[in-house]
């Protein structure tokens, strides 16, 4: 895997709930085609879905970069949006700043960041209030499917 880096970049539109989840779905398809272990793929898909949904729910717009690097899989999600004032608070399960209308749609349960953390080896968040957020996730030692 180490020879060349592979990268994909996708745009995410804020408040576009109709297309929400399409980007992480593409990440999942790429991983399946490259032969990663199905359970491993599921974990990565969930992490990237959460990150994508955060952009859809909270930000104006953003991008998701997905890269296969020698040190592992890297997902970077950048957005232009309100930012996160207190990251430690946001990391707590059940904490959410999502609006009532977003919660009524079944999102904003306050599990986004905790789920990202659960499914990745490294999670770094840099956020500036009023400007936006960069979420960086690294998943080391990707597993490939065994056998044919």
């Amino acid at each position: 895997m180490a020879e060349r880096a592979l990268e994909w970049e996708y745009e995410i539109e804020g408040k576009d709930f109709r297309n929400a989840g399409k980007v992480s779905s593409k990440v999942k398809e790429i991983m399946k085609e490259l032969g990663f272990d199905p359970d491993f793929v599921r974990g990565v898909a969930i992490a990237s879905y959460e990150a994508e949904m955060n952009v859809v729910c909270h930000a104006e717009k953003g991008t998701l970069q997905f890269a296969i690097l020698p040190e592992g899989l890297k997902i970077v999600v950048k957005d232009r949006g309100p930012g996160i004032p207190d990251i430690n608070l946001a990391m707590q399960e059940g904490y959410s700043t999502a609006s009532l209308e977003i919660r009524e749609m079944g999102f904003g349960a306050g599990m986004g960041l905790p789920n990202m953390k659960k499914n990745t080896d490294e999670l770094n968040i840099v956020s500036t209030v009023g400007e936006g957020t960069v979420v960086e996730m690294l998943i080391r030692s990707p597993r490939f499917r065994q056998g044919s």
Partner: protein
Amino acid sequence: MMKRLYGIISIDEDKCQGCVNCIMSCRTEAIRIFEGKARIITNRCIYCGKCFRDCPEHAITSRTHGLEDLKQYKYTIVIPSSTIYSQFPGEDAPNRILCALKALGFDDVYEEAVGAEEASIATQEYLKEYRGPYPLISSLCPAIIRLIQIRFPNFVDQINPIELPAEIVAKGIRKQKAKERGVQGKELGIFYLVPCPAKMVAVAKTETKERSYIDGVISISDIYGELLTALREVSETEDLQKASGAGIGWAVKGGEIRELEPRRWLRGDKESIVVDGIKNVINVLDEIENGKLRNVEFVEARACPEGCVGGALTVGDRYVSRGRIRKLMLRNKKESIVNREEVVKLFKEGYYFFKKGLKPKPFASRLDPDPLKAVEKMKLRDEIHASLPGLDCGACGVPNCRALADDVVQGRAEITDCIFKWREGVKDLAREVMQWAEKRPHSLPKRGK
């Protein structure tokens, strides 16, 4: 007559016109047109039978046993799929249909619906102790089981490990009735009357035990005519209907979950989903896999629209059929012969479980077993895909441009199979020929002089 066989599926190549209807209708992209005829890629096929219906020439069918196969056995029993009750009008029809079926030459009739009732109780018991992973996925549609094996391999362990209702019935017959009647193992022939090719394969090539309890499979459409005649003549002398509406209801979508909802076998704080049609099932499973659909407890997924009444080997209109089954389900007051305590006892002994676990059979996704090669192929595939016209016309014999790019990368097709690419090639060649034609040896005088 030229027939090509793909497991139980047969394509009549005299009838096949090589049109693109089947390749376009197949949801797992398992069909290609090669040398003017449809060919099936069997390890992609889920035997749903959708192409049987969508082929305008009726060239695609399945091979089944027929009534002549009854001769091989001393004593024969038929297990009709509950779908059979939907194929003829009349609410009082069930027992009459069973009598007519018996009159076709079987020694006895045992309803699949009784097995469904047992399977339902077994599933209820299983749900009591089940603590995830969620959702649990119904095991009643073999086409869906296969779809999960090839396309959603990480859900294989979430398939409800309770046997098919027909197998439960057949197992019961082998266990008890055979002794009562004094027929030895091989003298007894158990036939299953099915609404679809998927159930046929599930029995013929069972993956959940060493060997099926069923000996032969006959399709509803194959004996429909004979049954219709028998129905006219039969006298209802026996009471053969033993199942209640609960089991009969399994023939339609929602029939299974309906029996799980009362008395809170399902926890109720989670969602339960009934989904029919392969495309819809793929969407739902995709969304669950992506984490978009959450908190789902149970999924009843059916390959055929409306459930088994929409099976490719049925005769009646699926919507009319659904209505008939619903009537039976809601109005039929017949008490079931299934004894709950007995079933619970057997469940605890492990009687209803798969004897072998289902295995993942991923096919649709991976480009190459070697990750590095997979990366190379993906790049090449995406380049080829981008260069194709994107019409998804199917003229190349492959369902869409992306699939053609896949096939080219895998060495199964050539880029010139695309008529637009081929035309470009011809155009380039023509231009080159013109350039050559313009060239003249220097030894000759210039033109016009």
